[in-house]
């Protein structure tokens, strides 16, 4: 059962639970739409599109782990949270999921509420809270930012995968009895590995962007700029 990717397809979770999470996702997305109106300016609009495209592309990569018995994919919640903020970030991931379910049949349309709750809401929210916290604790250096992005990715993926376990426990169509703990364990183990892969990609991307265009990183907007060695005069002038 580890082969379950994060996209829940039709029929895995029963109707009432899917409907309840659909309502929850709808309310939360409405809040995101409302809050992101002031965020989305000329700089953020293309960034939001690119983040969504990037997430769309990396979700196509399925990680085969353990000789193909386990597979999963990147979620991109942390990347979205760091680069475009929690409100627009959640919308970006939600858009990816909606387009995937409508066109590619990846994740059932009736299960959209569950998928959006796990990946767009839980994933982005956990990542953003961690980023906001860690950026204040850790030293304001490039490595501090890299660690922040990495930790936020790993934990947000883990927590999002447990969102599925909760939903399956509430309304799984097949009673797997006591093995719900086993399901939680296998999901956590598989997504720990996915989280590490995702953490590496997120950290590399965020650090590159922050070095060259720190103005584009939403999470750094309200904070002091990163202190890099480049601020000191170097022989031969700045590169």
């Amino acid at each position, binding site marked *: 059962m580890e082969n379950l990717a994060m996209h829940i397809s039709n029929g895995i979770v029963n109707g009432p639970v899917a409907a309840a999470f659909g309502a929850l996702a709808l309310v939360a997305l409405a809040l995101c739409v409302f809050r992101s109106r002031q965020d989305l300016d000329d700089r953020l609009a293309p960034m939001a599109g690119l983040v969504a495209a990037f997430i769309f592309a990396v979700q196509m990569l399925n990680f085969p782990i353990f000789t193909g018995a386990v597979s999963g994919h990147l979620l991109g919640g942390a990347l979205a949270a760091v680069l475009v903020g929690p409100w627009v970030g959640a919308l970006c991931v939600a858009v990816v999921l909606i387009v995937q379910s409508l066109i590619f049949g990846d994740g059932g349309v009736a299960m959209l509420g569950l998928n959006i709750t796990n990946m767009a809401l839980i994933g982005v929210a956990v990542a953003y809270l961690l980023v906001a916290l860690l950026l204040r604790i850790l030293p304001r250096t490039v490595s501090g930012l890299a660690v922040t992005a990495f930790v936020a990715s790993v934990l947000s993926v883990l927590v999002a995968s447990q969102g599925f376990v909760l939903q399956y426990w509430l309304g799984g169509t097949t009673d797997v*009895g006591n093995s719900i703990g086993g399901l939680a364990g296998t999901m956590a183990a598989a997504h720990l590995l996915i989280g590490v892969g995702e953490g590496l990609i997120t950290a590399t991307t965020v650090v590159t962007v922050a070095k060259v265009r720190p103005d584009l990183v939403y999470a750094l907007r309200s904070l002091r700029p990163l202190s890099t060695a480049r601020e000191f005069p170097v022989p031969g002038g700045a590169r």
Partner: protein
Amino acid sequence: MGAGHAHVLYRERTSAVHRLPPEVKIAAMVVFTLAVVATPREAFWAFGGYLGLLLLVAAVSRVGLGWLASRSLIELPFVVFAFALPFLGTGEQVTWLGLELSVDGLYGGWNILAKGTLGVLASLLLAGTTTMRDLILGLDRLHCPQILTQIATFMLRYLDVLVGEARRMRVARISRGDDPRFLWQLRGFAAGVGALFLRAFERGERVYLAMVSRGYQGRMPGVWLATGAATTRHWLVAATVPLAATGIAAAAVVLG
């Protein structure tokens, strides 16, 4: 760069289904899927009925059954989950070919297999008959919040930008003596992923500024929105399939 209007799953044909306005197709597909999911899993005949409806639409839209079958393999990971359930389920057991199988697990596996497959086929039919441009137009006409359609528009536009940049960087690597093979390619990719993102952003920013300077205000041109909107006749024609599916679902609930 100019060919961003179709997508890999779009099938260029002329048919009544292709000509339907996108918003009625999206609505029909969503209602159909909801009807399928609401059907009790013991009503085997109902799922046959749904499949019949889908095959009818496929025949009218001329997308080809072979294409439909090969593309529906995307759901393979879920099918494996479905096959695992009979061994994991608890409760009453049956013996089949010497295997101890759970009855509840068998039903559960069938449930996922049937509903998942029907959902994938329905979305493939939508994808095969609707271009990306039309899809976003349809979502806009269905009063999807503008910020979502805006993100979706840029996402689809920038997917091409990303793929193009990735291809250029790969060519650049190869021409400098890199020899990308299956797994070793990953290292080069991982090292360059930040640069790829930045290059794609800078190109994407230029695309965005070009759009803004040509009058883009966060919405597709009014001409697109005004022409080809669905009429009552379109809604009635497209409603036949989801209505039939809802009828089957209701019958299955009552009889089941």
